[in-house]
């Protein structure tokens, strides 16, 4: 950097301008090579993603990856678009994992995506056909050898002294030059590796793959497919359902029941029964309506929402006040060892929050917990099992977790306060309470209000403390929905979504996520305005 001054006189000289050395190597230096290598890697990866997206027929991913790859090449190989060269990598992740997921949440909120409705209509038909497959009563039993090739696993069966091979995609066809043993089972198949029986028996995963493999008998799907139960013999399985694409109906050939897709994505039979497999459909605002009108959900969700707001507000106020109190007490230059004290005060904050919450879960245990043992003479107070005590416990533990933050913030704010104002007030005869109330506190509010609002938004979604401490419990007793009296919206969404087990209702969960987004967005918007107002003031 300092060489700039040394070099400049040289360029001022009226000699024929000589290009600087740095300029000469630009474009072909190490940097360029590294960039080229990186871009080769990116392109290779991108192309392989595009190819597998093509194979998996995932058109959305295909489009996105093509667009992103082309954009990457344009950005990094053109001379312009300098800023984008720096922003692009982060932007890609932002677009996929934040912007897209938010938009996708909005989309899912308008569908009935969830248990029983988690595939598209096409896939639903396919899996209905598969689920309904039964072994054909008069099917011959074929001696089977499981084979492995480039296209994955396949079946080789001996049919009348000939060997036929097929895979999930490739229907059975005759292979020449294969060898059979006495029982008619293929032992050698040209172009395929016969998987030894011992391997099938020892490798659980492989065995599972084999039992779920379906090899079509021919191009005509109605002829059924070969399946195996134990890996040594195969027989023909056929679905009793027939898909009529023109009419959009599934017909059961045995019972004659015709299933038609209804507006909720369920196949309903004309006898009133329905198929277990459904598909997701757009239901508009039904999820939102369900959240407020469904008797199972409306009551609990109202309570959950009320508690979410009270929890977020109370926890911010309580920890702010406690932190402020400590900061006021220890913001005095006459105290010795302030640094050590400060470090000890913020211990809870430096301790990982999820571990603290789990730790308190043990300490608040009604039987063996030390809180009862130490402070309540061994009484069996059920801190986490009673609705109100559990709420209190959560507030108390979160106070322990977050007062240090406010202690630090308030200490900083108090120290950066203009000394002259306080001095002037003192001279005017203001007592310390008056000084605090009329000068320190208002100034403190100005500098901490944005943080208080950010903290509100954080606690509004503070999943960790709730889930680690009480799991949202104790459960509501008046509803079948798995919600409890300390559940906040985000943990309720978690329970309803069923991503961790239980009945999945992605649609309703996403709709509630949208509600949370709106609340957080509104609060943040107010915060921005308010901070500007406070600053003017």
């Amino acid at each position, binding site marked *: 950097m300092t060489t700039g001054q040394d070099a400049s006189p040289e360029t001022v000289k009226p000699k024929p301008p000589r290009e600087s050395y740095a300029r000469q190597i630009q474009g072909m230096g190490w940097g360029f090579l590294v960039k080229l290598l990186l871009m080769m890697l990116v392109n290779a990866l991108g192309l392989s993603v595009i190819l*597998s*997206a093509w194979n998996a027929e995932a058109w*959305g991913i295909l489009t996105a990856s093509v667009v992103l790859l082309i954009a990457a090449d344009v950005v990094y190989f053109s001379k312009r678009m300098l800023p984008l060269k720096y922003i692009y990598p*982060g932007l890609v992740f932002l677009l996929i994992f934040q912007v897209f997921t938010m938009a996708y949440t909005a989309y899912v909120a308008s569908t009935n995506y969830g248990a029983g409705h988690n595939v598209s209509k096409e896939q639903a038909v396919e899996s209905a056909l598969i689920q309904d497959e039964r072994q054909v009563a008069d099917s011959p039993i074929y001696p089977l050898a499981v084979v492995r090739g480039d296209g994955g696993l396949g079946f080789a069966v001996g049919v009348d002294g000939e060997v036929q091979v097929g895979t999930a995609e490739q229907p059975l066809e005759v292979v020449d030059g294969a060898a059979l043993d006495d029982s008619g089972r293929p032992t050698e198949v040209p172009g395929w590796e016969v998987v030894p029986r011992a391997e099938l028996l020892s490798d659980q995963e492989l065995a599972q793959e084999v039992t779920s493999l379906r090899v079509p008998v021919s191009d005509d799907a109605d002829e059924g497919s070969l399946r195996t139960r134990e890996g040594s013999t195969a027989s023909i399985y056929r679905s009793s359902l027939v898909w009529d694409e023109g009419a959009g109906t599934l017909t059961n050939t045995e019972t004659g029941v015709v299933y038609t897709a209804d507006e909720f994505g369920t196949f309903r039979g004309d006898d009133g029964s329905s198929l277990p497999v459904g598909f997701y459909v757009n239901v508009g605002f039904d999820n939102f309506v369900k959240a407020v009108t469904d008797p199972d959900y409306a009551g609990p969700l109202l309570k959950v929402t009320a508690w979410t707001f009270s929890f977020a507000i109370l926890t911010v106020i309580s920890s702010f006040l406690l932190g402020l109190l*400590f900061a006021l007490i*220890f913001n005095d230059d006459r105290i010795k060892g302030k640094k050590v004290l400060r470090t000890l005060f913020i211990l809870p904050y*430096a*301790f990982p929050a999820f571990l603290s919450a789990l730790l308190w879960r043990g300490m608040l245990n009604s039987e063996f917990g030390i809180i009862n043992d130490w402070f309540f003479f061994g009484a069996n107070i059920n801190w986490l099992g009673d609705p109100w005590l559990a709420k209190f416990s959560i507030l108390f533990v979160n106070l322990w977790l977050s007062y240090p933050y406010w202690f630090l913030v308030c200490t900083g704010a108090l120290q950066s306060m203009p000394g002259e104002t306080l001095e002037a007030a003192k001279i005017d005869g203001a007592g310390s309470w008056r000084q605090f109330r009329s000068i320190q506190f208002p100034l403190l509010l100005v500098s901490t209000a944005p*943080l208080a609002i950010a903290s509100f938004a954080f606690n509004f979604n503070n999943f960790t403390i709730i889930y680690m401490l009480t799991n949202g419990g104790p459960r509501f007793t008046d509803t079948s929905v798995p919600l409890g009296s300390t559940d906040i919206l985000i943990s309720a969404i978690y329970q309803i979504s069923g991503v*961790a087990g239980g009945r999945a209702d992605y649609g309703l969960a996403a709709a509630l996520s949208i509600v949370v987004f709106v609340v957080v967005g509104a609060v943040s918007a107010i915060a921005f305005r308010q901070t500007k107002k406070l600053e003017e003031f």
Partner: protein
Amino acid sequence: MATSAAPAPTRRRQPTRRSRWWLEVGWRYPVAAVIIFYAAFPLVFVLSASLDERGSLAGTSALFSSISFQNYANLNDTLFWTWVGNTLIIGSAAAIGAVLMGAAAAYAFSRFRFKGRRFSLTSLLILQMFPQTVAFVAVFLLLLALGNVVPALGINSKLALICVYLGTALGANTFLMYGFFNSIPQDMDEAAKIDGASHSQIFWKLIMPLVSPILAVVGLLAFISAFGDFILARIVLVSSENWTLAVGMYQWVSDQLSARWGIFSAGTIIAAVPVLILFLALQRYIVGGLTSGSVKG
């Protein structure tokens, strides 16, 4: 606290220096002792429980009644060290990615003037207000779909979780870094530019060393948030050998709180102490970073 000022009324006219000291300063020390007890007793308790030879929650209320390292030894029979490894891998990758991408974006916003700059900054400001965890249903469905195409990015992949965390790298950190980058005088870039340095040389060799304090803060914050994340880690990582500490240790305590209290305490000590030390050592930087941007508590 009030009793400590008791001698004051008797010599009301001329309070001695000592009682004045008690009134104005001295009483703060007992208060400090109370606060320290409040802040530290759970931590002392978990240390004591981790050394308790019985290894269950029952009977832990007598502190340090027995000193044994059995609980620490028992950790070897669990997947604890695998989880530590996973957490370190995921946390470090998320931290490095966040630092690099955040710094690059902050550099672009701070040093270049381009069309859409204000708009992008405002959009980032708005986007970072919406927590990614709330969209976890969509993240889950997205990873299900991605996994069909690229198995390495599907459910139960650590790489996928890292990518999910990196989604917030730009929103959360750019502003924190942007302000810091702006505080570095532009004249330096100019001088280097005249010397013939390219924009990438300026970025890597000039700016990056100068902003290293903020890089450390952002890296540490990203690491801690990955370390402490439960909800995304829980839905992405399915099989127990892929879990992070947050998921694994939750499982211990949620299943058999009392019986596994010993190994939980030992695990807590091992997991928390490095973070605790790192945090306290860097507290000056972190507090500065926290008050100007993201919030933990």
